C-alpha cells in the first residue's frame, strides 16, 4: 500500500474517532449540567481541558459559557479539532483514498459531511437541536465503524485504519479520566453524596462505559472506575484493550508475531506490558495525573514512530 495512502487512512479514522468522542463528551456534559447547580466555569471548562485546546479557547473567548464551549468544540472553524473540522478532514481524507474504501463507507462519510455542512451554517442552535446533532454524529460514526468492519477486507488499509482509531481512542479515554478524576476527588466534601454519584456516572457515560462497568463492579467507586478505564482487558474503550488491539494490527502490518521489527512496534509493546503488569494501587501511588500524562506522551511517541516506520519510508528498491 502507498505510504501516503496508509497515512491518509490512519488519520481518517483518527478524525472520526475524535469527532465521535467529542460528541459523546458534550452530550453527557450537557445532560449532567441540567441537574447540577449552575457553575459554568466548573462544568464546562474541564471539557475544553480534556481536548487540550484550552489555549486556543482562551484566545477566542474571554469567558467560559455553555454555548461558547459547545460552539468551540462542535462548530468552530478556527478550532482544528472541532467536530466540524474533524468530519471535513475525515471526508477529505476519504476522498483522497476513495479506491481503498468501500462504497458503503464512502457514502456514510459523505452523509456525515453533509450533516456538519448543513448544521454549522445554521445559527442559534436550541438545546433540543444540539442533542439531536450530537446523537446524529455519534450514530453516524458508529454506523461507519460497523460498515468499516462489515465491508472491508482485513488488509493493510483496514489495519492502518484500526490502528488510528485505537490510538485515538486510548488517548481520549486517558484524557477524560485525567481531567475528571482530579476534579471529582478534589471536591471531598461531596464524596458519597448523590451529586458525587451523578458525576462519576457521567464520567463513565462519556466513554460509553457505564453499563459494562455496572455489570462488572456494581458499585461506583473511584479506584474501580480508574481500574476499569485503564486496565480492563475486555472493555473496548479501556486504554489497555486499545493497546492490545493496536498491537495486533501493527504485528500484521510488520509481518511478525514475536518481538519487534520497528520502533513503533517496540514502543507499543513496551507500553502495553507496562499496563499489563501493574495494578490500580500502583497507579494511584504513582499519582493518577502523572501516570496518565506519561501514557499520553508515550501514545504521541508511538504515533510518531508509526509515521516513521510506515508513512515516510526512505525509498529503497526491495
Amino acid at each position: 500500500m502507498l505510504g501516503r495512502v496508509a497515512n491518509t487512512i490512519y488519520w481518517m479514522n483518527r478524525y472520526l474517532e475524535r469527532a465521535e468522542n467529542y460528541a459523546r463528551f458534550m452530550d453527557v456534559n450537557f445532560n449532567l449540567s441540567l441537574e447540577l447547580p449552575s457553575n459554568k466555569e466548573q462544568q464546562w471548562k474541564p471539557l475544553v481541558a480534556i481536548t487540550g485546546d484550552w489555549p486556543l479557547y482562551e484566545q477566542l473567548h474571554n469567558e467560559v459559557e455553555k454555548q461558547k464551549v459547545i460552539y468551540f468544540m462542535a462548530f468552530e472553524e478556527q478550532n482544528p479539532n472541532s467536530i466540524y473540522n474533524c468530519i471535513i478532514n475525515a471526508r477529505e481524507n476519504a476522498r483522497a483514498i476513495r479506491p481503498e474504501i468501500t462504497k458503503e463507507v464512502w457514502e456514510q462519510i459523505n452523509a456525515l459531511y453533509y450533516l456538519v455542512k448543513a448544521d454549522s451554517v445554521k445559527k442559534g442552535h436550541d438545546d433540543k437541536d444540539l442533542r439531536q446533532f450530537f446523537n446524529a454524529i455519534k450514530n453516524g460514526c458508529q454506523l461507519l465503524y460497523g460498515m468499516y468492519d462489515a465491508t472491508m477486507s482485513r488488509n493493510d488499509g483496514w489495519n492502518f485504519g484500526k490502528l488510528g482509531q485505537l490510538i485515538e481512542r486510548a488517548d481520549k479515554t486517558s484524557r477524560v479520566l485525567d481531567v475528571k478524576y482530579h476534579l471529582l476527588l478534589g471536591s471531598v466534601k461531596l464524596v458519597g453524596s448523590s451529586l458525587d454519584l451523578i458525576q462519576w456516572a457521567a464520567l463513565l457515560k462519556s466513554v460509553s462505559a457505564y453499563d459494562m462497568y455496572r455489570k462488572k463492579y456494581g458499585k461506583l467507586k473511584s479506584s474501580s472506575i480508574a481500574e476499569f478505564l485503564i486496565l480492563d482487558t475486555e472493555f473496548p474503550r479501556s486504554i489497555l484493550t486499545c493497546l492490545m488491539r493496536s498491537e495486533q494490527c501493527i504485528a500484521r502490518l510488520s509481518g511478525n508475531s514475536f518481538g519487534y521489527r520497528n520502533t513503533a512496534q517496540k514502543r507499543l509493546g513496551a507500553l502495553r506490558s507496562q499496563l499489563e503488569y501493574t495494578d490500580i494501587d500502583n497507579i494511584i501511588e504513582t499519582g493518577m495525573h502523572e501516570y496518565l500524562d506519561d501514557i499520553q506522551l508515550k501514545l504521541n511517541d508511538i504515533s510518531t514512530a508509526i509515521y516513521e516506520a510506515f508513512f515516510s519510508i526512505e525509498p529503497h528498491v526491495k
Partner: protein
Amino acid sequence: MAKLNLSTYDTKGFYDEMFDENNMVRPNYKLFLDRLQKMSVSKLNALQHSTDRAQLSLGMTFNVYNDNQGVERILHLDIIPRIIQNKEWQYLEKGLQQRIKALNLFIQDIYNDQKVLKDKIIPKEMIFSSVSYLKELEGFKPPKDVWCHITGSDLIKGGDGQYYVLEDNLRCPSGVSYMLENREILKRTFPELFEKLDVKPVYNYTHILRDTLESLTDVEQPTVVVLTPGTYNSAYFEHSYLAQQMGAELVEGRDLIVKDDFVYMITTNGLQRVDVIYRRVDDDFIDPEVFNKHSLLGTPGLFRAYLKGNVVLVNAPGTGVVDDKAVYAYIPRIIKYYLGEDMILPNVKTYICDEAPDRKYVIENIHNLVVKQTDASGGYGMLIGPKSTKKEQEEFIAKIKKNPRNYIAQPMINLSRVPTITDETIEGRHVDLRPYALFGDDIKIIPGALTRVALEKGSIVVNSSQGGGSKDTWVLNS
C-alpha cells in the same frame, strides 16, 4: 395532479431528438413519452430532485476552476435521456472506428516517417508549430503502435439531422464516470423502461479499460495505476472512480519514483514496480526533467523510463497534436490518405485563418461564424459570432491578424435539442454527444455516451465549467 402540458412544446427551427418537424414523436421516444405523459409534473420534479441527492451522496462533485475554494458542485443530471436507435448508433460506431484508426496511423507517421508531410497532405509548419507536438518523441513507437488508447470525441447533430465530429479529444478525455454513474441513477429512476426499451448496457466499460491497459505490456499480472493531479483537480472524482472500479492504485506524482529508468511507487513495504500508468495529468506536467520544470504534479525521469519502454503511458504523450483545431481541418484528407476511404462521419466545415483566402472570409463574415483558438478547450477562447457584440468581434479580428495560426472558424451549427426539465414543464435544450472509444487490440466503442446539455435557454455552450449539465444516453438494441 397536473400532467405535463406538451401542447406548448416548441421545436421550431431546430432538430429535436424527441419530436419531428410535425410535432410527432419519433419512434425511439414513443415508449418514453407514454411514460412521461402518465406522470404528474410534481412526480417528475420529485424524480429530478432525487437524482441531485443521489449525486451528492455518491460524491459526484467537482471543483470549478477560478471559483472559491471549497465550493463543490455536481454536474446537473437531467433525467430525460437522450435515446438513440441502433441503426443510428451503428453508423456512429463505424465512423468513429474509421476516424480513430486513421488518426492513430497519422500520429505514428508524424513522429516517425513523416510521409504525410513529405507528400504535402498537411503543411509541415502546421505540425511543427503545434504546441502539442513533442519533438522528444521523434523515432519512438509505443507498445503495439497504439497512441490514442482512450478517445472521447465530441459529436453534434445539426439542423439537417446529420452528425458531425466537432473535436477529437485524444489527450485526456474526461466525463466517462458520468456516463457510468448517470446510468446507475437513471436505472433507479426509470427501472421499467430499461426492460421494455432494451437499452444496451455500459457497465463493462471499466472491465474493457482494465483489459486494454493490461494488453499494452508483456508483464504477467502487471501493476496498473491511475495517475491523478490530486483532489483539487476538477476531474478528481472521475480519477478515483476509475481507479476504484478497475481495482487499480490511485497515485499522485509524488507517490512515484524513477530508479534506473524503471518506475516504482513508494509503499509501506518499500518500492513496487509500476508497469502501466493511465495518466490523467497533461503531457506538460508529467516530468519536470523534460517538460514544465515547475510542475509539482509530475515525476522526474518518468519520460525517460517511457522512452526506454519500461513503463506504458496511456494515452501516449504527443497525441495532443490531433486536438489542435487547425490540424482538425485536415482530418478528411488524413483519413483518405491512410485508409483510402472517404470519411464516414463528417467534420464541420472549418476555415483555417493561417491560409489567406480563409482568413479573408473569416474576417468578413465573423458575425456569422464561431471562431476558436486552436490550442484551447473547455469552451474557452471562443467567439460565437451571432451572439457577440461588435466590440468583441473587433477584438477577435485583431487577435486573428496578430496570430493567424492560432485561430480557426466554423459556421454556426444549430445543435439538436432534447426535451429538458424546467421548473414547470419541459423545453428543448441544445446538446452534444461524447461517446468513448477504447483502443487496445481493436477499437471498441462503448454503446452509450455522455450527452452534455446547455441548460440555459438558447445557450449552445454545453461545457460543465460554463453552465452545462448532462443526460444519460440510451442506445437501443433495436
